[in-house]
């Protein structure tokens, strides 16, 4: 009985060598060769070589001259080493209060008064790192961003329209706007650093 069990132990260690070490390392080598950018996290670097972020991950934006992403529960907000969500149930008072507060803030900031706030702008994402907002949520912020930057709204609207990603193959997923990419384009449009 013991000998048999030890044999299964040896089998397990053999599997560990092949599946737990060989397979992931082989995939790492292959991935780094075939798709080097993606395999290393789709990082965005500045001209001086410092890392600005990842094209796939959202960042925290709080200033009025930037488009804002979704409310985040990852660490203190958009902490990519501590992903998380609110996990509040639909009947949670905490949830309803948070959504109410965000809705008021979003409407006040937008200055457009009457329009209803797109739901993704006032609800926490699943990861706390959602890089996207819906096209409606981006458009909702245009007047605020344009005013803060002294740009004509039409120019900002045009930039948003350029950054709307449709469904993959016209079929999969939801239309969306990558907030970091949009804000980087906004900085480029304004000709360098934003007004502080």
């Amino acid at each position: 009985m013991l000998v048999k069990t030890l044999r299964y132990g040896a089998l397990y260690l053999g599997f560990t060598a092949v599946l737990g070490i060989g397979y992931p390392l082989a995939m790492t080598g292959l991935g780094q060769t075939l798709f080097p950018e993606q395999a290393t996290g789709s990082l965005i670097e500045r001209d001086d070589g410092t890392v600005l972020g990842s094209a796939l991950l959202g960042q925290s934006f709080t200033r009025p001259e930037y488009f804002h992403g979704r409310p985040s529960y990852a660490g203190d907000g958009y902490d990519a080493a501590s992903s998380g969500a609110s996990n509040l149930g639909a009947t949670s008072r905490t949830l309803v209060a948070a959504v109410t507060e965000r809705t008021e803030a979003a409407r006040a900031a937008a200055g457009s008064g009457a329009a209803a706030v797109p739901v993704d702008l006032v609800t926490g994402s699943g990861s706390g790192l959602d890089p996207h907002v819906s096209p409606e949520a981006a458009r909702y912020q245009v007047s605020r961003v344009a005013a803060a930057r002294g740009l004509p709204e039409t120019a900002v609207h045009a930039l948003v329209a350029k950054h709307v990603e449709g469904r993959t193959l016209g079929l999969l997923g939801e239309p969306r706007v990558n907030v970091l990419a949009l804000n980087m384009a906004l900085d480029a449009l304004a000709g360098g650093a934003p007004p502080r």
Partner: protein
Amino acid sequence: MPMTDLVQLALFVVLIAALAPPLGRYMARVYQGERTLLSPLFAPVETAVCRLTGTRPDADQHWTAYAFAVLAFNLTGFLVLFAILRLQHLLPFNPQGLAPMNADLAFNTAVSFMTNTNWQAYSGEAALSYFSQMAGLTTQNFVSAGTGMAVAVAVIRGFVRRSGRGVGNFTVDLTRSVLYVLLPLAIVVTLILIWQGVPQNLMAYVPATTLEGGQQLIAQGPAASQIAIKQLGTNGGGFFGVNSAYPYENPTPLSNLVQVVSILIIPAAFCFLYGRMAKDNRQGRAIFAAMGVMFLVALGVTYGAERAGNDLIAALPVDQSAGNMEGKEVRFGVVNSALWAVTTTAASNGSVNAMHDSFTPVGGMVPMFLMQLGEIVFGGVGAGFYGMLLYVVLAVFLAGLMVGRTPEYLGKKIEAKEVKLGVLALLSIPLGVLVLGALSAVLPAGVASVQDAGPHGLSEILYAYSSATGNNGSAFAGFGAGTLYQNTMLGIAMLLGRFAIIVPMLAVAGSLVGKKVHAETAGTFPTHGPLFVGLLIGVIVIVGGLTFFPALALGPLAEHFAMTGGLAY
């Protein structure tokens, strides 16, 4: 229902229906030892494995020997994983210098990955070194899936064999599952995922200075290789804390489609493998139909509830036309989140791309109910199928009672012994969900883990114990699972839900394998037509409904009526 949503759901259904039959036929060839395309590559490895373990590949094991092999192999796997988690600070590939796991969390995690549950009471990027992720978890992702597949094939042999006393050889079945089925598919899926943006590296976490000048530490790691097998093996354990909601783990709608198809494809293929091994494809198709009908109903209910949104914020000036978006990602939207939630709980996978805790009450109840049925709507790789055969035994037995004949299935008499063993296996589910769940709802150490007030708090407990017992692994993640009490009790629930079903089902197989096959007569109840499919679904829903309806009424249903009545807690 927007047309774009309908098209996405239909595409998923078509892909499964198109891919499962050929995969099932291929797998049947693999397990029956026939030559396949991959034989030249893997046959020598198989021989080496047999030599290493002193196995004669043609030596059929009696069901007791098979069960012993399952238990011994899993025990050693548990011990190795436990040791790795406790010693990760001394092992290589730990660029973040992460500390060892404490004992109860390591116990919970080792049980969780051994039982194919992948319940995670920790957050990957904050708690596990790359060595623990690879050598510890990726290995278990493969072999726990392989164990389920091997047991399913052994149980199937019990039903379909016309002679002999053995049910197969565990080492051979396990090795074939891993080499011929899981590994090749995992390599393909890994490469697609890397292409779509999932990281695969051994770098330290990258510090970034954000556009606004803030700091962001970006987690990295060999993620794609583990995510591929976590889906294919219905394991579900995320590389990162929030699993497939994390943009690195599931960056695009295409990666989402590949992953959600990966979850269901092997469990669905088992139906067709079964038809092939029974030499009667209609039998496999009947079971596929029963699973498919239940899946589609569950999908419709969850999708509808999530699409409708949260009544409690309907009065606010919020445009909820996108549905209930709390805990969901924009790139997936409500439709892909609902599809994933139903798929992952139908299939005992447990990975998530949205937070089930923040689903609407009814949207969250359906995944819970799918787990409570015992993960048999497709279910875990292998595990779903032998779980379904358990219900088949019950359905055939009830049909026999109704017409007053000794029930037969595939020509073999289903007698008291098989039914008793089946019921014994079935009882482990309410034992884990209701008894252990009830304990957690009354003991202070258990209640302390609850996050939300009101009926949703009970739902959190109920979901946790349904998930652990069903070996699912998804969570209402507000539930504070990482305590000594919950680590221990949920660990026990996972063991119950795994081995207290495996052993009796192997015993059923052992009892059936030697039985004489009777020729079909005019009095034989056909088990391949719509009547049987309806009966099977009826048995599943009634058994599940009677067992779990009272608990569901106090949790999600009560919460639903609170929500529609405008009541928050």
